[in-house]
């Protein structure tokens, strides 16, 4: 391949960074060459473009309820209605409610549904984030990671609203919070790690393969049943639980729910799911950073 020869020429450059201070006048020098900037520079660039990240997330929030009648009430209605439907079909008709244990099934459901919807909405939003902004990709430079990460903003705000509703439900059904609520932020972070891993990977893949667009709804739907949202993980035989906990959402959503309801938390399962999620995140982001320089050419 011809590009090999050029790569050797680029190596002549002593500094590996794309941005070095020139000896002449302390002006920042940007070096443009075949293999591009180092991964660390690209991550640092993400920090330099933090204002863009914030404004893109704010844009999504502002635009999403434009010309709707109910506006932000949708953020409350969606999980609530889903919860009622699932409660009637799974809880009452199929009798899952009886196998849940102490807590009222609606609260149990909602406590799992809130982080699940965060995952589902964020995965859908991030995976399409690059292709939806193809015009930007082709015409402006910025660290491409900005787009999938900014797409997390709106689902996160929805999650916060859903959480407020959750505490209202707990009061209604007389479920008291315990000290374990303190673990909730950590549990949510473990959910977010998996979300970033999944979203960034899918976003990059969508640029190359539009198939991913069709895969995502299917993937989210399948994972819904492979994640203990409508049922507790204790419904499964002990020796097989690890299998479902390889799903990065399984242990983390159970942990979210345990933290809220004050029920025992399966720390091993949480750890396993988080590890898988973190691996996905590291591999996904590393691949994305390597692949992003080609996005403008193929999107």
């Amino acid at each position, binding site marked *: 391949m*011809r590009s090999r020869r050029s790569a050797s020429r680029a190596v002549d450059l002593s500094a590996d960074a794309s941005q070095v201070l020139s000896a002449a006048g302390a002006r920042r020098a940007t070096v443009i060459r075949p293999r591009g900037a180092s991964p660390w520079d690209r991550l640092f660039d993400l920090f330099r*473009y933090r204002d863009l990240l914030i404004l893109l997330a704010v844009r999504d929030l502002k635009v999403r309820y434009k010309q709707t009648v109910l506006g932000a009430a949708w953020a409350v209605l969606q999980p609530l209605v889903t919860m009622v439907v699932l409660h009637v079909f799974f809880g009452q008709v199929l009798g899952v409610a009886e196998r849940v244990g102490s807590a009222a099934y609606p609260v149990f459901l909602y406590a799992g549904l809130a982080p699940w919807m965060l995952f589902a909405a964020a995965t859908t939003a991030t995976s399409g984030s690059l292709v939806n902004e193809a*015009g*930007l990709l082709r015409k402006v430079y910025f660290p491409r990671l900005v787009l999938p990460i900014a797409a997390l903003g709106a689902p996160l705000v929805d999650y916060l609203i859903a959480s407020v509703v959750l505490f209202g439900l707990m009061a209604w059904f007389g479920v008291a919070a315990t000290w374990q609520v303190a673990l909730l932020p950590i549990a949510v972070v473990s959910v977010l790690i998996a979300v970033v891993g999944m979203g960034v990977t899918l976003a990059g893949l969508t640029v190359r393969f539009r198939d991913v667009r069709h895969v995502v709804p299917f993937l989210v739907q399948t994972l819904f049943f492979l994640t203990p949202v409508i049922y507790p993980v204790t419904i499964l035989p002990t020796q097989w639980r690890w299998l479902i906990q390889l799903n990065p959402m399984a242990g983390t959503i159970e942990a979210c729910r345990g933290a809220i309801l004050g029920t025992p938390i399966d720390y091993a399962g949480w750890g396993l799911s988080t590890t898988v999620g973190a691996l996905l995140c590291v591999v996904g982001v590393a691949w994305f950073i390597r692949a992003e320089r080609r996005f403008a050419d193929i999107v």
Partner: protein
Amino acid sequence: MPQPAIQVEGLSKRYRLGGMRSIDQTLREAIHDKVEALWRKVRKPARDENDQTLWALRDVSFDVAEGEVVGIVGRNGAGKSTLLKLLSRITDPTQGQATIFGRVGSLLEVGTGFHPELTGRENIYLNGTILGMTRAEVRDKFDAIVDFAEIERFLDTPVKRYSSGMFVRLAFAVAAHLEPEVLLVDEVLAVGDASFQSKCLGKMGDVARDGRTILFVSHNMAAIRQMCPRSVWIDDGRLCMDGPSEQVVDAYLNHTMRRGEAGHGAVFETDPSKPFQVKQVEVVDEHGRPAPTLNCDQPVTVSIHATVRRPVHGLYGYLQVFRNDGHCVLESDSFDAGANPLDALPVGEHRLDVTFPPRVLGHGGYQVYLNFGSSMNDGGFDVDTPGVCCQFQLSDTRTARGDGRRGVLSTILPWRVAQATQAKAA
């Protein structure tokens, strides 16, 4: 000795034609391609890869000193835009390297990233950060941007309610206040009305006088001559000429005139990704016959064959006619005459004819620039840019002075004589 601002050394960019085709590539096709490539390798290991790749830019080297304003000229598809894309880090080069000293601002398109639902105010902040400013920097320049764009009253109106002129003014205003040390500009001045265009040129002149470095791609030879003391001509991905703009522009225009074969028209390769695409452009006479040279007494028609694959809302076209010395003689928007016939043109093949009446343009050589865009297009403003795609020659055979007549118009003025009535004695 001024310090360098841009150093370009052997910069090259190769596109895999397969990669360009992959706009809608699916997983199945990718696997199929991979298997096919492997099979080919097995059968014919030393296959020449040239027929599958395209060098959009080949071994281009030049230096630009701090404070220089350099024009880049060349045909459409010559590699000018690829050069700017590489320098603005949108895509990586295949070979070679470039070093840019100082903060880079690039303006490849006016209004990239504007969101129609957001207000002018919100879009100023969003677009400013997209172009690389921080929120604090946008805040500092906010008033200047609003002043420049003259949209004060509409600051809190969603930009989807803006007229296209307001939209372009706002978009350019944000970009103009970017104040980078190195500014890369691609043909953005071809938008907006004439007074706004001259305002934009003036702003760029200010930027240049501040000692900033500018690389300016344009088909507007008059603007290049006016703005840039030095120009670089790129043809077929290679650097053809680098020197004083007067010489480079003359050489370039001479070359395009001599290219005869493109002469009175151009045919474009099919690009299925474009919702609207010009397939063929030619200059024809009043009988619809292709005619590279015409008489001032004949109407001149630029006949455009276009395909609509998906209707584009808000689509409009504009055509500019340049004299060979680079002066823009006339600009015509498809909505000038009232309703815009191109807006949401239905799917199918269409012929668009733009006709200059006889006895308007003066004798001499002309070039026609064409562009089609829509601010409502989701892939960016430009829908299809045929660029400078045809030329024609007019000669004046009726008047006594003929081609020696001075001036830019060929209009025949009647000289009426009437008996002057004697003023009554006071």
